[in-house]
C-alpha cells in the first residue's frame, strides 16, 4: 500500500504540527449541553433516547456533518472512532439509542446521548485552544438556534454530572512527556498540575491509562468562571508543563547525549526489525523515536510516518487498515509488518 494511504486513514491533527508541536499533539474543547424537559441519557429509556437522537439529528446541518446512529455501524468502526478520539470509551460501551455527528474535516464531532444529550467537541493540532474554542462555540450557537437547551440563570448549562455544570466546558491538551517519564518526574508533575487545579488523564480521557507517554491535561471545574478564564488557566498550566518537559529533555541531552542517542536509535531499530509487536510496546518505542526526532537525533523526514503509526497501530485502526478482523496474536504479527514496511519507505 502506498504511504499516502496511512496518512489518509488517521485523524488530521495527528499528523499536523501545531504550535508547541514538540510537546503538544492537540488541543480539545468539549461543551456539554442538554435539552430542556428531557431526562439525562443514563436515566432515560431507550425509547426516549431514540426520540432525543432524532430531534438532535434534525438540528444538525447535514452539509457540515455526517450523522451516524451507533447501533448502525460495526463495533470495529466504533472502536476505530474511539481511537480517533471522535467517540469516548463510555459511549461505545452501550451504543443503543446513541449517535455521533462528525464534521467533514473530522476535527469536530457531536456525541449524542453520551453522558449528556450533546457533547460538542473540537480539536486543533498543537497548543491552539482558541481555534478549537471558536469552532465548538460556533457549533453550539447553531444548535441553540434550533433546540431548547437546559440553562439555568444561576447554575448555567445543566448537566448530568454536577462536575460539568455551568459552562459545561472541558479544556484539554494532549501532551507527549517522554522526558519527564524517563527521568521519573511524572509523579511530581502530576502533583503540581493537580495543585494548579487541573487533572491529568489517560489518552482516551477519564479513567484510561497513559500509553506511549501521552497524557491529557484538563480542567477540573466548570462553574464560577468564564470560558475564557478556563482556557487561560489551562494554557498557563500547559505552558508550565511544556517548559518542564523541554528543560528535562535538554538536561538529558546535555549530560548524557550518548545514552539518549542509543535509546532512540535502539527503539527505531526494534521497530524496523521486529516480527511480533503489541500495541503498548509499539507505542512506547514510537514515543522514543518521536522524542529523537523532536531533539534532532533522528531525521525529521519520518515524522509524519511516526505520527501516523502512533494511531494506525492501535487495534481497530490496524484491522481497518488491513481490511479484516484479526485475533490478537495475528495482530502483533501484522502490526510489526506494517511498521516495518512504512519505516522502510524512508
Amino acid at each position: 500500500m502506498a504511504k499516502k494511504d496511512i496518512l489518509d486513514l488517521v485523524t488530521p491533527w495527528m499528523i499536523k504540527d501545531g504550535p508547541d508541536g514538540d510537546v503538544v499533539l492537540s488541543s480539545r474543547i468539549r461543551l456539554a449541553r442538554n435539552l430542556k424537559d428531557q431526562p439525562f441519557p443514563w436515566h432515560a429509556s431507550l425509547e426516549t433516547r431514540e426520540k432525543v437522537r432524532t430531534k438532535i439529528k434534525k438540528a444538525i446541518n447535514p452539509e457540515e456533518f455526517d450523522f451516524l446512529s451507533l447501533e448502525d455501524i460495526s463495533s470495529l468502526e466504533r472502536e476505530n472512532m474511539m481511537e480517533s478520539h471522535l467517540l469516548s470509551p463510555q459511549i461505545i460501551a452501550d451504543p443503543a439509542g446513541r449517535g455521533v455527528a462528525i464534521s467533514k474535516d473530522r476535527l469536530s464531532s457531536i456525541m449524542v446521548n453520551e453522558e449528556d444529550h450533546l457533547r460538542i467537541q473540537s480539536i486543533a493540532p498543537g497548543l491552539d485552544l482558541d481555534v478549537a474554542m471558536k469552532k465548538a462555540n460556533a457549533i453550539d450557537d447553531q444548535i441553540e438556534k434550533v433546540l431548547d437547551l437546559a440553562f439555568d440563570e444561576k447554575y448555567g448549562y445543566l448537566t448530568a454530572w454536577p462536575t460539568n455544570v455551568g459552562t459545561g466546558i472541558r479544556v484539554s491538551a494532549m501532551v507527549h512527556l517522554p522526558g519527564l517519564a524517563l527521568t521519573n518526574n511524572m509523579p511530581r508533575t502530576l502533583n503540581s498540575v493537580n495543585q494548579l487545579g487541573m487533572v491529568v488523564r489517560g489518552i482516551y480521557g477519564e479513567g484510561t491509562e497513559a500509553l506511549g507517554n501521552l497524557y491529557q491535561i484538563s480542567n477540573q471545574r466548570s462553574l464560577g468562571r468564564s470560558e475564557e478564564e478556563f482556557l487561560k488557566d489551562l494554557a498557563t498550566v500547559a505552558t508550565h508543563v511544556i517548559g518542564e518537559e523541554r528543560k528535562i529533555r535538554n538536561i538529558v541531552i546535555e549530560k548524557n547525549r550518548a545514552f539518549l542517542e542509543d535509546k532512540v536509535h535502539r527503539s527505531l531499530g526494534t521497530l524496523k526489525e521486529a516480527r511480533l509487536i503489541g500495541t503498548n510496546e509499539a507505542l512506547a518505542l514510537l514515543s522514543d523515536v518521536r522524542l529523537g526526532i523532536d531533539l534532532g537525533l533522528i531525521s525529521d523526514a519520518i515524522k509524519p510516518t511516526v505520527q501516523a503509526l502512533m494511531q494506525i497501530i492501535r487495534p481497530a485502526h490496524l484491522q481497518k487498515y488491513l481490511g479484516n478482523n484479526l485475533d490478537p496474536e495475528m495482530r502483533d504479527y501484522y502490526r510489526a509488518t506494517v511498521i516495518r514496511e512504512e519505516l522502510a519507505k524512508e
Partner: protein
Amino acid sequence: MLCDRCNLNPATVHLKTILNGIVEEKHLCQKCAKETGQLQMLNVTNPFSSFFETLLGSMEYQPTLLRSKCGVCNLTFDQFRRTGQLGCPSCYREFNNELQPILRRIQGDVTHRGKIPVRQGGNLSLKRQIEKLRDELKDLVKREEYEKAAKVRDEIKELEEKAGGNQNG
C-alpha cells in the same frame, strides 16, 4: 521475587530508573509502589471523580431526604448519592438545597459566570450588564464625576426598563 522495600509481598511493579546514565532497578509490591508514589504515574485514573464519590458517600442525609423524589423525573436523592448523576435538568431546582453545599465543595462556586445562550438565557445578559454599570456608577460617584455618573444612571434605568419589559413579555 519479593518486594525490595517490605520483603514480604511478591513484587509486581518493576521500575527502571535511568538518570544521568545511572541505571537503578526497583521491584516493589503493589502496596509499597502506592506508598512511594510510584504507582501514580502508571495508573492515571480520574482523581476527581473518586474525590466526588467520596464526598457524596461521606455526607450524611436524613432517610426522608434520601427517599424524596424529583417531581419531574422521579429520581430519588439516594439514587443521585449512589450514582453521582442527576436525572434531569429539573433535579437542580428540586434538590437545590442539598446541591448548594456539594457544588461549593466540588466547584468552589455556585454561580455561573460564563456563556449565556441567546434564546434560553432570558434577561441574564441584561442583568449582567446592569450589574457592571452599577459598579461603574459607584466608582464615578466616589470620584465625584457626577456628570458621567448621571449618564450611567440613565443607561441603567433604560436597561432596567428593557429587562422589566422583557419579563412581562
